[in-house]
């Protein structure tokens, strides 16, 4: 059977040979056309191409150097540029856009329970020592948790506590306020409001021992109270 596709291919390459090979029949194409040719070759080539290499593939009588000059001008300030690599030419991404060549895959991960609780305690009790955080959570705070919060720039080191051992304290940062959309840490609602707003799990026990309920004010400055308690539990 005749293979039409192959026939066409044969025909096409015959024509191509003719185009490349015959200097008499074909005048040098207009400069705009030469520009197109250089553009296409530079685009398709895996390696930089010298003027000679390009000229060798183009019709006779073309002025590759001139075509490059024009093309280079055309690409000035564009997303890609015609650059000289040694004695050859190549199309390359504009330097200021190199950031587009790396794809950031953003993974959103939920902060661990330990991390969010630690952060919450720091937010409500700042400045607060590590020992105090541990006392409130009832479990020890891992170094990784604190490091992560520091790395996220949500907490930073505060003043040292003026108690024996001079433990460091943690406070929240401006970045923390920005992230959580707060003006100041004082905007954080107290437990009562939390319960009233339904944010708290609906545990009936909330009101059973009313005397133990810390008041709003307590939330922000019971570090004094804690001080006495922590003399033997120093950070590290």
């Amino acid at each position, binding site marked *: 059977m005749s293979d039409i596709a192959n026939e066409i291919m044969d025909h096409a390459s015959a024509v191509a040979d003719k185009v490349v090979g015959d200097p008499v029949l074909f005048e040098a194409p207009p400069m705009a056309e030469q520009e197109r040719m250089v553009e296409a070759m530079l685009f398709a080539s895996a*390696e930089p191409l010298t003027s000679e290499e390009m000229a060798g593939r183009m019709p006779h009588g073309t002025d590759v150097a001139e075509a490059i000059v024009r093309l280079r001008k055309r690409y000035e300030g564009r997303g890609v540029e015609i650059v000289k690599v040694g004695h050859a030419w190549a199309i390359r991404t504009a330097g200021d856009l190199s950031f587009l060549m790396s794809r950031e895959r953003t993974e959103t991960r939920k902060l661990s329970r330990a991390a969010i609780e630690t952060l919450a305690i720091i937010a409500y009790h700042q400045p607060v020592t590590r020992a105090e955080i541990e006392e409130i959570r009832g479990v020890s705070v891992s170094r990784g948790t604190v490091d992560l919060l520091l790395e996220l720039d949500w907490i930073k080191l505060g003043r040292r506590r003026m108690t024996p051992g001079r433990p460091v304290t943690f406070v929240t940062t401006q970045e923390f306020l920005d992230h959580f*959309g707060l003006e100041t840490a004082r905007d954080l609602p107290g437990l009562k409001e939390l319960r009233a707003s339904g944010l708290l*799990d609906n545990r009936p026990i909330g009101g059973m021992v009313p*005397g133990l309920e810390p008041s709003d004010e307590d939330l922000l400055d019971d570090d004094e109270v804690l001080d006495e308690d922590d003399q033997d539990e120093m950070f590290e």
Partner: protein
Amino acid sequence: MPEDGALEVEEVKAEFSVSERVASEALLVDVDGFEGPLDLLLVLARTQKVDLRRVSILQLAEQYLAFVEAAKKLRLELAADYLVMAAWLAFLKSRLLLPADPTEEGPSGEDLAAHLAFQLERLEAMREVAAKLMARDQKGREFFARGHSVDVDQRRVVEWGANLSDLLKAYARVKTKEDFKPMHLDKRDRVLTLEQALEGMRALIGGSLDWASLSSFLPEGWQVDPKRRRSAMASSFAASLELAKRGEVELKQERVFAPVLVRKKARAHV
């Protein structure tokens, strides 16, 4: 109808164009040169020199059967599906030639012939578009992709998700847990026993009949340290319940979370 299959083949071949004759000769040597019986039928149909829609299926069936006969005479091994097709075409031929039997079920000879014509037309159409498709400019042949492609490097950025709601809930969870943490009894000096609380409360409640907050009944030294305070509060509350049960005190609370108030119960009510 010619009896001699070989003769018929000769006649058929006479009508072939040169290239088709070459092709059909190739068939006789190597039947696999054809892409199956339908392809062979299509080639034979073309010899009728009419539009495929007007091809005589009866004539086509005869052409095919003659072809198969000739192949058998040359002792060529025909693939099974060519023989199946031959048998089917012989059946079709009889259907087309004999008057329709009204008791016969299934499609009529004309229906079968029409479908075969459709199949041939469709096969030819697919061949034509296949050729058109292959004749298109193709990537890597007429047009080209970027030769120097830049691999986009994948940077993994982990965004830690937490919103204000998570934060508030976490705090509430911690505080709730803290409120009801079981008492640690390892440090006796931090725990006010129920007996101690009862004793203290009885002493304090004395003669006063005024309501007083439960927290005012905490013994000296149990009011500041949160752990001691917690323990004292719990024990005093339990003690007040015990006293209320015995009818010695009354308890009230204005509203939820309000301080618990205690007073000595008036004797008249006993």
